[in-house]
């Protein structure tokens, strides 16, 4: 079975509001960059299939999948859309190439939340229509805040730990040209940040950005043709939580733990805390960074916060996820988790 590599990466946006391009042009610009990065690949000739991550409500266009092909060079070719995060699509592309039926697969994802004038309504429409939506929550972040408190109460995590995560992420973002919200924060700045949904302050919640990302994946033979520096994908895993929020574990992201175990198994990683040198974790909320470090097995459950305080300035060691790649200073483009960092 062939190996799979990432051979090209392109991006567009990563700013709070992209004012001069629609999401379709942002897709096009990200694709141009990715194809150039993949050795000048011609999508009309060299790509076997395309996957686009999108959801109609986020687009403001119904049946938005029909808008997917043209901006990425996929018209009249094999294109499908996944209503999920871009990392899911990377997993899909990986499986397609592993099957032997495809040599080069392109993954595109984008989000332009600045276009959405009723973003909170759209997000509220994602809630269960019987048990949750009728409550009319004034702020959808309340659900994350419920998770935050459950995690913090169970594992003794305090606001000082969240402040440290926020400070570190913003500081790291200064080295990332795509991090719109990077800055030098200190504990005092954190405390001045208004409480939005206790226990979360405004600084604990990643702000949105407009962004598009395109990733080119290839089989081993194609990768060696297209790139001198392919990045090999050794394992992929994803798990979807129960759709009933009330039945999920509020204190720990078991889905992330199980997905990581799947990926580690494929990559033959037995002890991630020792073997993984670098990790980029989703930290759309401050506490999520701590949770995900633990879910990835990089720190024992409930211990990431203390480890962070003990080594606040390091990027390696037990918490290698603290690179310039953090979501927070970069912002959250809603669908484009696959980052160009």
């Amino acid at each position, binding site marked *: 079975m062939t190996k799979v590599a990432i051979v090209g990466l392109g991006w567009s946006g990563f700013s709070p509001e992209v*004012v001069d391009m629609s999401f379709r042009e942002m897709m096009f610009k990200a694709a141009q960059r990715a194809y150039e990065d993949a050795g000048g690949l011609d999508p009309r000739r060299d790509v076997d299939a395309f996957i686009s991550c999108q959801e109609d*409500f986020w687009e*403001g266009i*119904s049946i938005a999948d029909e808008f997917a092909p043209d901006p990425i060079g996929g018209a009249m070719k094999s294109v499908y859309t996944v209503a999920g995060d871009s990392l899911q699509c990377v997993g899909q592309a990986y499986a397609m190439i592993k099957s032997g039926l495809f040599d080069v697969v392109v993954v595109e994802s984008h989000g332009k939340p600045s276009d959405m*004038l*009723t*973003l*909170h*309504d*759209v*997000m509220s*429409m994602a809630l*269960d*229509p*019987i*048990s*949750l939506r*009728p*409550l009319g*929550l*004034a*702020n*959808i*972040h*309340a*659900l994350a*805040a*419920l*998770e*935050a*408190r*459950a995690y913090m*109460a169970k594992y003794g995590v305090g606001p000082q730990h969240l402040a440290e995560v926020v400070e570190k992420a913003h500081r790291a973002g200064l080295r990332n040209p795509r991090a719109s919200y990077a800055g030098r924060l200190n504990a005092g700045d954190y405390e001045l940040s*208004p*409480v*939005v*949904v*206790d*226990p*979360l302050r*405004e600084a604990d919640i990643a702000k949105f950005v407009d962004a598009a990302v395109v990733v080119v994946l290839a089989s081993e033979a194609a990768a060696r043709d297209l790139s001198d520096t392919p990045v090999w994908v050794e394992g992929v895993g994803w798990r979807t939580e*129960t*759709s*009933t*929020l*009330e*039945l999920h574990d*509020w*204190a720990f992201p078991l889905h992330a733990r199980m997905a990581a175990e799947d990926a580690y198994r494929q990559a033959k990683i037995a002890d991630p805390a020792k073997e993984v040198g670098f990790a980029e974790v989703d930290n759309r909320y401050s506490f999520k960074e701590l949770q995900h470090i633990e879910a990835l097995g990089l720190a024992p459950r409930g211990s990431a916060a203390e480890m962070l305080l003990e080594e606040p300035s390091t990027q390696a060691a037990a918490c290698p996820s603290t690179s310039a790649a953090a979501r927070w200073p970069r912002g959250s483009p809603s669908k484009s988790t696959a980052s160009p960092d």
Partner: protein
Amino acid sequence: MNRVKYFQEVMEIEAYVYTAGPIGTRWLQELKNGRLTAAYCAKCGKLFLPPKMFEPETFEEAVELRPIDDVGVVETYAVIHRGFDGEELKEPVAVAFIRFPGVEGGLVHYVKAKELRVGMRVRARWRPVEQRVGSITDIECFEPV
């Protein structure tokens, strides 16, 4: 707003109906009657809340609702001070996840209490009969026992 560069569109996302389904309809009817119920899975013998026709662990079809006590325990809570766009609410609103003894899952609902804490026992405050419509909001909120 430059009307050539941008133009506003409206997507009527609120103009839908949702079919409550066999279990959901009965659950809502019971709420209207002032009774909290949970679905019973005949395969694993567990009660789960909110009820669905499909038990997520066993994939068994749930056909039975059983009454449960409307006294639960706050497993976690959050206090909303500001809306999604940063606007300050007139007064903070507390929302909690409440677990009920012997039941998988629970309910997310509002709690009115002077001091909230994890582990606090709370009871449903039901709306007057004439105000109930068959909704989770027939429970106005939960209060300390």
